[in-house]
């Protein structure tokens, strides 16, 4: 069973608010990822990290930012939420040569 956790599971927030989506894993994986997914669409990679103090932007442009100060923690922050940010955000971690494990996701709604 995967030990990767995301909080909150659901979030409804007003336009202009700052939010942080939490992601933690206890497997000691170096590689961590944030994906964004809308119904009927592929998972779009928005950020990834290959270890502490390593962060890169993914294939899909995003106004969010991430940090990786500790191996187990990879939070995603939106400084000013907008309705266009409404989506499901999925965090994953991976060790070399294995599958990626996903958290349960955060369903974000910006009103």
């Amino acid at each position, binding site marked *: 069973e995967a030990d990767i956790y*995301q909080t909150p*599971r659901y979030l409804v927030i007003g336009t202009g608010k700052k939010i942080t989506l939490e992601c933690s894993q206890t497997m000691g994986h170096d*590689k961590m*990822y944030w*994906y964004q997914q809308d119904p*009927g*669409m*592929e*998972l779009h*990679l928005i950020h*990834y990290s290959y270890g502490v103090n390593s962060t890169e932007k*993914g*294939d899909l442009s995003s106004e969010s930012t991430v940090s990786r100060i500790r191996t187990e923690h990879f939070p995603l922050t939106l400084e000013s939420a907008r309705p266009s940010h409404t989506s*499901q955000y*999925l*965090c*994953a971690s*991976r060790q*070399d*040569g294995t*599958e*990626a*494990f*996903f*958290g*349960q*996701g955060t*369903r974000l709604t910006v009103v």
Partner: protein
Amino acid sequence: DQQVKQNSPSLSVQEGRISILNCDYTNSMFDYFLWYKKYPAEGPTFLISISSIKDKNEDGRFTVFLNKSAKHLSLHIVPSQPGDSAVYFCAASKDDYKLSFGAGTTVTVRA
């Protein structure tokens, strides 16, 4: 530029019959392929994977086939069960880095 494509958005199959899901990719450098299953409002869960050095991998009711020359892989589920109703995503990676996902195929298993 979508490098992993699942051209069938949906599949309906009768319980007990075989489900065949297809996936095509464009990047010949991909060396690791995976299938994930996803329920609404949850994160994807890993099903089965295959390395590019193999052409078949089997795990219980799930078998993945890889045709490198055609840049095509498929997932066979036999027999299909009602609990298999979900969205199935194909994913691929190169040199153990980020995973690229297809848009998913929604499988409905009819009783």
